[in-house]
């Protein structure tokens, strides 16, 4: 398999997968009636965005942005044998994942309280506030 084709296939799989995750997730948020399902869908969307971000930072045949002793030879000077992938998206995604966790956790706590209050997890039945 040639390098070009591989790149093509990889780009389609990564971009396609993340796009599909985002769209499926949004679809879930918009159509599922169960509160927990909605939050599950939101985590799926989050995963999609994260995957997209990381795959944008990827460089073909790059290595992880960690300087290992083999490369280093114990010297301060850094030797680069292979290009390193972009570390910034990784750092940002790290943050994004934790934020997503926080939001999901708060959302689930709200779900528990809503369930105690309304005795249901159907979003259509939780409509005390309207108009």
């Amino acid at each position, binding site marked *: 398999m040639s390098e070009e084709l591989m790149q093509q296939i990889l780009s389609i799989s990564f971009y396609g997968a993340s796009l599909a995750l985002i769209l499926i*997730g949004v679809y879930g948020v918009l159509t599922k009636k169960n509160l927990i399902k909605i939050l599950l869908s939101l985590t799926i969307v989050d995963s999609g965005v994260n995957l997209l971000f990381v795959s944008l*930072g990827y460089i073909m045949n*790059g290595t992880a942005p960690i300087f290992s002793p083999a490369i280093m030879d114990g010297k301060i000077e850094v030797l680069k044998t292979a290009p390193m992938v972009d570390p910034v998206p990784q750092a940002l995604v790290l943050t994004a994942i934790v934020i997503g966790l926080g939001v999901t956790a708060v959302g689930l706590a709200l779900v528990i309280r809503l369930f105690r209050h309304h005795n249901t997890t159907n979003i259509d039945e939780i409509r005390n506030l309207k108009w």
Partner: protein
Amino acid sequence: MSVLTVLIVVLGAIFLVVGAWYVLTRKDLLVATIASSIISLILSVFFLILQAPDVALTEATVGVALTTIIFVVTIRNTKRMEE
């Protein structure tokens, strides 16, 4: 990057999409939650392939373990089945 990796990626991508759909359609929330944790697992493999070990580790701990646990706890406190 070897052909095998490409193959894994393609399969994984398909599995991701199917898994996401499965999560949405499954009426049993517990199963859906477990399925979503499997999605996270595949994602963390993807991150590893994309040379992002830090993210992979985070996704593996947060997405696979912690998020799932919180969901399970919530389901225990509410209803297991989606009506």
